[in-house]
């Protein structure tokens, strides 16, 4: 049985082929006053095109745009919301990457599309429907400094409502799948369940598009009971960084999809397709009634571009082997 392959966030921006547009170089030239903002924008478009073409060529079933123009997974969206001020750099969990911390200084409000235009442009470059990306509302709250609400449930719900409006704008732009990155759900304790639920309940209300709640780096077990009945389509698990995620499978409601994060996005060691296909078979053995996606554990931007490409090839090879029932 075929298993859908997909990404789990952004993709490395650097080219692997000499002579291809190098966004890093163009941005450096802009910073030195030798290139214009228009030239940077053109380099972002060229990089997006390359990312999408690569995924199409390798055979990823549900490609993503790759977020070529984003500095991190939060700021691009957060700075588009009313009530948010962008502050200093913080380390992004334990990844040795950084983000600029949003500060909640007023009521959080969505005032217009932030990512939808970019998504529409990217979709026009792809032969296959793209999965859109948004930072998750609970994690965006946890990544932020709350100087307004003082109550995690209220703050997280406000982000959920605002990002839900953005998800609707993505639907208007043609998105049929929306990937929601929620690393903090993997770090949540049972006591956080109320805030997690408030964020996702507000976010998920009334959407046509399918939604993937993706939890990299940790297992959502501690709060899964709080979100089990919400109308998400898929829960994405990092089964390398958090093997405890396997314990979620028996609890997933019928009719849902599980994203099996089995390609390690945080280590250069390449997976054997036989081992990955074996893990897929294990999941199917545990819950034959569910649908599955196969993906990296997280954004592939934690890897060098050359390794990321090899990981994608392993991903597709693993899915092919899994489809044959091989392990």
């Amino acid at each position, binding site marked *: 049985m075929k298993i859908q392959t997909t990404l789990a966030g952004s993709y490395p921006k*650097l080219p692997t082929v000499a002579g291809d547009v190098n966004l890093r170089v163009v941005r450096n030239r802009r910073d030195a006053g030798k290139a214009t903002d228009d030239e940077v924008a053109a380099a972002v478009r060229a990089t997006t095109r390359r990312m999408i073409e690569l995924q199409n060529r390798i055979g990823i079933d549900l490609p993503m745009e790759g977020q070529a123009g984003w500095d991190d997974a939060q700021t691009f969206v957060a700075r588009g919301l009313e009530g948010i001020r962008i502050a200093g*750099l913080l380390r992004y969990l334990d990844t040795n990457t950084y983000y600029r911390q949003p500060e909640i200084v007023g009521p959080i409000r969505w005032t217009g599309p932030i990512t939808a235009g970019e998504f529409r442009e990217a979709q026009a470059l792809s032969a296959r429907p793209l999965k859109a990306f948004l930072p998750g509302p609970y994690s965006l709250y946890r990544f932020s400094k709350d100087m307004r609400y003082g109550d995690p449930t209220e703050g997280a719900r406000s982000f959920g409502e605002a990002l839900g409006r953005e998800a609707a704008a993505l639907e208007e732009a043609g998105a049929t799948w929306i990937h929601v990155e929620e690393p903090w759900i993997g770090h949540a304790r049972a006591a956080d369940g109320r805030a997690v639920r408030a964020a996702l309940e507000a976010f998920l209300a009334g959407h046509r598009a399918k939604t993937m709640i993706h939890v990299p780096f940790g297992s959502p077990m501690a709060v899964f009971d709080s979100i089990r009945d919400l109308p998400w389509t898929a829960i994405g698990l990092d089964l390398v960084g958090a093997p405890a995620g396997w314990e979620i499978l028996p609890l997933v409601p019928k009719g849902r999809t599980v994203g099996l994060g089995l390609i390690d996005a945080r280590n250069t060691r390449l997976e054997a397709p036989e081992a990955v296909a074996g893990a897929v078979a294990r999941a199917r053995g545990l819950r034959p009634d569910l649908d599955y996606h196969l993906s990296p554990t997280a954004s592939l931007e934690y890897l*060098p571009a050359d390794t990321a490409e090899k990981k994608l090839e392993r991903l597709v090879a693993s899915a092919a082997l899994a489809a044959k029932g091989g392990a």
Partner: protein
Amino acid sequence: MPRGLWTTTVGSFPKPPHLEKARQQFARGEITADRLGEMEREETVAVIRRQEAIGLDLLVDGELYRGDMTTYFAELTPGYAVSNPVRSYGNRYYRKPVAVGPIRRTKEWTVEWWKFAQAQTKLPIKGMLTGPYTMMDWSFNEHYPSREAMTMDLAAAINDEALALQEAGAKYIQIDEPAISVRPEELPLAVKAFARATQGIKAKTITHICYGDFDVIYPALLDLPVDQIDLEMANSRYDLLDRFRVNAFTKEIGYGVLDVHSHRIETKDEIKEGILRGLEVLKPEQMYVDPDCGLKTRTVEEAFAKLEAMVAAVREVRAEKGITA
């Protein structure tokens, strides 16, 4: 009269454009290692002279001969390979170490540079290393069966280098552990590894930690067997001071007052205000005033303008509070 509020920096200084160009030329095989080394030594002397001129108390060699704080060591160490560039934030990239075999220190990493730098000045120069936990956490691992096994091999290697720096005469040895604040469950491993890395060290030990979640590791962080912990204070608008009011900071502190990720030059008055806020909960003899992190991401002009403002602010506070260096 109390002593304190000594001034220093965290480690790295920006490379001047002609040195950046020379490093690129060397990478392309257009100049020799000898020529690059000659330029690096010239610029190291220049950085030391400027630190002296500004009036800093505790100097560094500026790390102009290093690329990234982990990659530099990996390139000199059997058991390590180095990846193609990986992004850290925005448009900043580094080549990440990859553990491909047992990690062993088979030659000195920094001692010759430290000796060269110290020979240029009567002021003390810090020996500068990256800590075992951070080296492990910021590497890919294709060899070790566990994070602990890799960390402890690194700790042994770093201890060899720290002992060699001490033998060469270093009175201050800084072993940076910026990764320590991200996995609280591994703090005991980081503490154990740091103890191994500093085994037999009588010099003053310092560690730099930044951009993490201090709520989850403080005050347990004080278990680290080190004399001074260097923290970014300005980036978090001195919020850490509230934690110190609840749980006293019991070690010396490197007290960061300059945002190293901003082009803006802080005013003397705002730096002074930050120092005065610190003195509400810390003793002057605990405090070494410095930037939040290494200055290598700034331009040369920005870096020294920021430091000039910092030293001017410290001098005013010292004068007003009757504190001597």
